[in-house]
């Protein structure tokens, strides 16, 4: 079992714990919980051949990236909703809306894959770059929002969760940023020439993955404890 499998394992734990977060906690946590549930789904698919039998179906493999994108959008939606709450002190989103929106996005993405030409390796790489770009951009935006949320809630019982969220998104930046860097420069193909660059990015990727997945587990456990 390599580090990627360990990261996926941690995400599965976080996802499993998030199921009760989704059902039992205030609705504002629903989209974040849904995101935490979708990330391991995508990660399992992308661990192609490591744990599950190797898949040759590019549709399913591409779906792994799509799940990752939708998961990040759902988490970001939750963070935005929380930011609005700290400013307006009103919570307007409701749980069915979030579920419908996520399912609609997933179905729309699948339809997009089906109606377009069969995705080959190059298409999968392009979609992975798009996925990682989305993760990076949203992580940067969310870090800024989380900073503002934390400043408002720093003396509230839940403040610790937002410190952990900051670590989570910094982890995302490293995890997905290093992957994006390697994809853009195609370091895997030229790792003979740039061995050090590749090695560092590979370690950063694993480090980011571990940090973010551990943070996710910590956040869910912390929320369960504080919100009791």
């Amino acid at each position: 079992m390599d580090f990627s499998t360990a990261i996926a394992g941690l995400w599965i734990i976080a996802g499993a714990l998030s199921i009760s977060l989704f059902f039992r906690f205030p609705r504002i946590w629903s989209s974040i919980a849904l995101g935490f549930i979708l990330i391991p789904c995508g990660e399992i698919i992308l661990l192609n051949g490591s744990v599950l039998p190797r898949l040759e179906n590019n549709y399913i493999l591409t779906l792994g990236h799509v799940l990752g994108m939708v998961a990040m959008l759902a988490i970001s939606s939750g963070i935005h909703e929380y930011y609005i709450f700290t400013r307006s002190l009103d919570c307007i989103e409701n749980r069915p809306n979030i579920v419908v929106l996520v399912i609609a996005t997933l179905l729309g993405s699948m339809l997009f894959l089906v109606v377009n030409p069969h995705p080959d390796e190059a298409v999968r790489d392009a979609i992975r770059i798009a996925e990682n770009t989305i993760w990076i951009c949203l992580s940067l935006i969310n870090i800024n929002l989380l900073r503002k949320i934390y400043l408002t809630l720093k003396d509230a019982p839940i403040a610790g969760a937002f410190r952990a969220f900051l670590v989570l998104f910094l982890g995302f930046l490293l995890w997905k940023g290093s992957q994006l860097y390697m994809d853009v420069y195609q370091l895997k193909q030229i790792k003979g020439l740039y061995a050090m660059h590749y090695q560092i990015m590979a370690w950063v990727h694993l480090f980011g993955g571990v940090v973010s997945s551990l943070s996710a587990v910590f956040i869910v456990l912390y929320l369960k404890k504080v919100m009791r």
Partner: protein
Amino acid sequence: MILLPRGNPIKENINSAKVNLPDLLDQLHKTNFTGYVRFDCEPGTGIFIFQNGRLISALFKSELEHLIAYDAISKIFREALAAMGRLSIYRLSDGLAISIHALLHGHLLYQGQELALIDIKSLLATMNEKQRSGCLRIYSKDHIALIFYRAGKPLGFFHDGATEIETSADSSMSVAKEPGAKVDVLLASDDPDQSFADLMETADISNLWAKALSEHQKERADKEDTSRRTMDGQEAAMRQKIFKEFQHQAHSYLGNIGASLVKKKFDKLGLFRFNQACFDEFFLDLSTAARMVAGERQISLMLEEMKRTVKELI
């Protein structure tokens, strides 16, 4: 307090709030009533004297005021509207009504002399010698009797239940024998044979009543307004106190956002009245919002503390 024997009572101790005074005066006018209407209220006593349906005198006397004619009518109207007064109507003979008028508009020579301490014979002799017109008012705690004099000669007696000036001294003089009896000497200032103007003809009673009614309504509105403002002020102060307490408690459990949530929920309720429904709505709203930043246990503790505060303050 105007001390007068009760005469022949037609009505006694009617609640003045149930009587329209102009209508009553008008009815007495139309029925050629002779006698007097007595109005007792907390500030003083008012008297209307009728002779054959003519309102020949109106008087209002209190510790601070001695009003006659139109001023007295206005005052009685105002007091009747403002306070719970008692009205009594007594029938008298013509002569007695005139005598009562002369008595009420005369002046006091002696007042509240203890009968046990004075030489009554000497007093009566002096009345005769100086040819005084007026009356001796003898009264105890429960009864009043009048002895009328004209030019030093006694005319007769008037006591509770009588309608005429009587010649028999028995009933009147029995008052003098009661414990603690006192005597006033009043001198009449008018000629008892003079004719009197009818105040109901010369005064616009309806207008006086309308004016009194308008003043009363204005006073009542002012009082209500002042009372409402005082109540609003007290409620606002209490609201502010509760608001500050809630903010403090929310801050200690939820931090700064707790205080902000309390403010938001207070503002949402607008004109916050102190009733259970308002508080229930407030607590429900606050707990829903508080669940975003704290757990059920902490929220329950905070709400319990807030509910205790409400009990203590209201």
